[in-house]
Structures are given as structure tokens and as C-alpha cells.
């Protein structure tokens, strides 16, 4: 036994084969643990559309409703507020929402007001930077954070600024315009969030 020659090639092969098989085993055993962190079936199930009456939202006011646990802003924009929108274009990252923000709204809201009806803004109130809820600062007057404030949204987290159509200004951390969810008008004073308008309706 003692003077038998050691077959190094065979030994190396067995060592690496054992290591590879063991490695594959560990990796496959890790999969269920990693997958267990994904949203569960219960978390995925919660997400029905929401219907909201617009009757009580006065001109210039914002209402926040929850849709899929996300805050959705509904704003009744005044003519003055709407008039500010075209003037912001040179200061915005993507004024037409066709560049980096092309996927931030359904086709029917890819316009100057980012809405179906000009006065009604319906928007997911989540900052595109790191997900805070920006504050609605609707009045057109100098603010401590911007002496030339034209009305819009100010994010408390890292001070990103958006105009009254949720379009992001240049030079702030947020990269994109805020998201417009699928929505449609059930009738003149009711909106449903989470469902696209019917084709041709």
C-alpha cells in the first residue's frame, strides 16, 4: 500500500468533480430561499381598480387616493396653472415626455398637459428618484426653494421639483416625469384608475 504510486491526474479530477457537483448542489439549494423573497401570491392579488368622484375637488385642489397602495394625485388645475405649463419647456428634462419619460404615461396622456381632459391631472404621486411622495405646492408664488416658482411638486426627500403636469425640472436628482396610471372617465364627474379608456369611446 505505502509504495503505491499516487495518480495525481485522477486525484485532481476527483477533487474538481466533487467541488463542481457540490457547488451545483449549493446553488440549486439556494434558489428556493432566494425565490422566497419575491412578492407572494397574496401581495400580487391586491390591486383592483379604484373609482373616485370628482365633485368635491375644487379648482386648484388636489385629492390623494390609494390605488395598489400607491398614492394617486387627482388635481383640478386652474386656467392659470394650465397656462404655466408650456412656459416650463426649456427648464424641463423631457417636456414632451417622448424621451427618457416615454414609458411614463399611456399614449392617451402623452400630450402637453399629460392628461385626458386638460384640467384633470391623474398621476401616481411617487417621485421617480427614490419613491417619496412629492408635496403639491400649487400656488404660483416665490418659494424658499425656488424664487421663480411656477407651481408644481416639491419632493421632501432629495428636493426634486416637478411642474404641474408632473414633468421633472433639470438639475434635480429625479430622472423622469412622474407616472400617469391607466385611467378613464366613467362619466363627467367620475374617474376610474387602473383601467384604460375603451378604444374609440
Amino acid at each position: 500500500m505505502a509504495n503505491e504510486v499516487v495518480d495525481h491526474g485522477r486525484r485532481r479530477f476527483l477533487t474538481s468533480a466533487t467541488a463542481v457537483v457540490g457547488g451545483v448542489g449549493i446553488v440549486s439549494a439556494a434558489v428556493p430561499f432566494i425565490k422566497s423573497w419575491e412578492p407572494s401570491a397574496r401581495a400580487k392579488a391586491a390591486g383592483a381598480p379604484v373609482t373616485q368622484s370628482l365633485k368635491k375637488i375644487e379648482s386648484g385642489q388636489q385629492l390623494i387616493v390609494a390605488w395598489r397602495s400607491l398614492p394617486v394625485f387627482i388635481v383640478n388645475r386652474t386656467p392659470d396653472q394650465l397656462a404655466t405649463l408650456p412656459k416650463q419647456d426649456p427648464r424641463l428634462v423631457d417636456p414632451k415626455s417622448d424621451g427618457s419619460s416615454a414609458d411614463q404615461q399611456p399614449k392617451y396622456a402623452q400630450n402637453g398637459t399629460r392628461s385626458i381632459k386638460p384640467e384633470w391631472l391623474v398621476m401616481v404621486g411617487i417621485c421617480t428618484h427614490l419613491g417619496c411622495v412629492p408635496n403639491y405646492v400649487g400656488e404660483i408664488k416665490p418659494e424658499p426653494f425656488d424664487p421663480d416658482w411656477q407651481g408644481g411638486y416639491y419632493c421632501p426627500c432629495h428636493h426634486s421639483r416637478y411642474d404641474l403636469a408632473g414633468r421633472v425640472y433639470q438639475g434635480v436628482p429625479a430622472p423622469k416625469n412622474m407616472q400617469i396610471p391607466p385611467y378613464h372617465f366613467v362619466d363627467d364627474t367620475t374617474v376610474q384608475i387602473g383601467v384604460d379608456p375603451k378604444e374609440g369611446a
Partner: protein
Amino acid sequence: MANVFASIGDWVNERAPGLMPVYRKHMTEYYAPKNFNLWYYFGSLALLVLVNQIVTGIFLTMNYDPSAAGAFDSVQYIMRDVEWGWLIRYMHTTGASLFFVVVFLHMFRGIMYGSFKKPRELVWLLGMLIFLVLMAEAFMGYVLPWGNMSFWGAKVIVSLFGTIPKIGPALQEWIMGDFLPADATLNRFFALHVIALPIVLLLLVVLHLAALHEVGSNNPDGVDVKHGPKGNRWDALKPADGIPFHPYYTVKDLVGVGFFLLIAAFIIFFAPTFGGWFLEHDNSIAANNLVTPAQIKPVWYFTAFYAIVRMIPSAFGTAVWGVIGMFGSIALLFALPWIDAGPVKSIRYRGTGYKVALTIFVVAFLCLMAIGMDLTDEYFPKLFGAGIDITLWDNVFGRIMTLTYFGFFVFLWLYTHLGWEKTKPVPERVTTHD
């Protein structure tokens, strides 16, 4: 009595003869340089705080309920109804902040005396890993009370991962286990905070100390006592400028412990929220997924890194740059042993350029902290008049400080790799030998 102990000792020794040599190697026969100063307290203080966090943490879990529905109330219950619950919680929250005070000073000591340089790179790298795990641990602990700051803090930090191109959004959902921080998120953060990360932390601390004891401690003069003359009062072959860790430094460290506990007790009893620095006001409101607190900022120890995220604007349709900046600011600390190639360790004998640069670096770090804490928003109008554009000045100031932070590492590399540094002569032995 003494006989009983002696015979128990003998009994153990016979069965595990390897134990006493280990004890001697790390305690009574670990020869540490005799010239340690105040800066060398913070390692043992970090150990003390670690023990405090574990003990108070265990007792907190006994009444805490890790569910989105129950967490907030259970913390209020600990504060109001559990006997001495308030003390245990304040010891834990104050401990968390003091942990970072102690670790920041401990790290600064390492930079000042060149303790990260050869042969202690491994000690430094393990220390940096500890720092990373400590940040994760602190963040997850902060989420547990499920106040409104907890919720939005969790949202923002997890969204950092969402900025990674392509995989970001899926990764973000994977971390949260939902589409926003929810029950699933709280449960897993609880599991990580109370068991997974503490185990990793303890292991890293053991390795950190083991690595240190392999090469021996540095000291304020940055000269290696192992290379100095041999022979001291206890051992003819050991460094002349070394003294046994136990009892000499254990006793010294006890003085530090006493002083530290005095300060800690004062905070715990008289200023447990520390004016909103250690415990934030908005966190005594329950989590609300529709309203972000008006003033949202992380706890003070994250503010410098947070300010860097805030100062870097988005570009090319992604916000990942700020995140890269933030992680980069920490990654550069990992790389310090290779960025700084200066042959002299201690700041006492390094070039003037280094001293100036390090001072500026500390100032920049403190300024970034102030920006992250929104102190600049508060004081700029007071200093320069109410009409100024705060965001503009915040950004100008913050970006200069961010560049200064990164500039330090660039300067250090050039300064030491291109041989610009003019050092002073380093003494043969530690300066306080007899």
C-alpha cells in the same frame, strides 16, 4: 473556595490543554505598544456597545411584534407599559448612535496613524466590512418601529437598488417582497436585524481582532514595536516597547468605559432623542403609505452619504449616478491602503500636504453631514438673507463638498504615488520609551 476553583481549572486544563495558551496569546502575552493614547479607546468601546446592542436587543424582541399591523403599537407598549421598557429601548437607540460615534472616531484614528497600511490591510478591510454590515443593521433596525420615517426611510433606501439599470425594479420588489414596504418587508428586516446580521457582525469582529493580533497593533508613532529592540520586564524575546494587554490595557480601557458610560447614561436619562438626532420626531407617527413626512432625512450617521446622493443630479434618464457616488464614497475607503502609498504611517511624521488634505477632508465630511441633516436649509437664509435661492446654494455648496470628498482620494494617490510627499524622519522607537 480557592481550592475548588483551582481544581475546576485543573480539570478543564487536562481535558482542553489548548485553552490557556489561547488566552495568554491574546491577553496576558499580547504585547501592545506602550504609547497608546485616547484614540485607542474606541475599539474596546465599540465592543462594549456591541454587547449593549445585543443584550438590550434580545430584551426588546420579547415584547416587539414584527408585523405591519402590530409593530408601531408594540413599540409604544414597550415605552409605556412594559416595566423599564423605556430604559431598555433608549439604551438600544442611544447605543446605535453612539456605536457610530465610536466607529467613526475609531476609523479616523486608523487613517490618522496609518493603521490601514501594510501589514494591517486585512484588519482595515475586515473593519470596512464591519462598517458596511453595521450600516445595514442600523438601517433595518430603524425600519422596525414602523413609524412614518421608518416607512419612508425603507422606501428610499430600497429604491436605491431600483435605480440600477435593467434589473433595478425587479430587484427592488425582491427586496421588499411587495410593491412597497409592507408586512413582508418588515418581517424579513426583523429576521435580518435580530439574527442574520448580528451573527455576521460577531464573526467579522472576531476575524478583525484575530487579524490584528497576527500582526500586532499600530500606535500613534506608526513605528512597529516588533521591529524595535527586544526584551521587556516579562519576556526577554518580546518587544521592549510592548506591554501585556492584560492587565495594562484592560485597566486603561476600563477608565474609558467608565467615562463613556457616564456620557451614555446622561443622554439616556436626560436627552434620549437628542433633539431629534438619535430618535426622529416624525417616527412617533405611525407609517402612512400616502404621506411622506415634510422633513425627511436619515439619522445623523447616514447624512453625509445621503447628501452625496442628493447632490448628484440624474443624467441620461437615470438616477443611478447619485447611488454610484454614494457607494463609491464608501468603496474608496475600502481601497485606502492602495490609494495611499506613503511610506510613513503616522500623521506625526507625514508631509504638510497630507495634514492639510486630511483636515479639509474632515471638514468636507462634516459639511456633507450638515447638508444631509438640512442644517444648511435652516441656516443659509439666516446667514445670507431670506430672499436667497436655498436649493441653488445648497447645491453649489454641497457639490463643492462632494468634489472635495472625492478630491481627497485623488490628491492622496497623486501625492504619494508621484513622490510629492516630504516626510519627517521617523523615530527608531516609540517616542515615550524609557
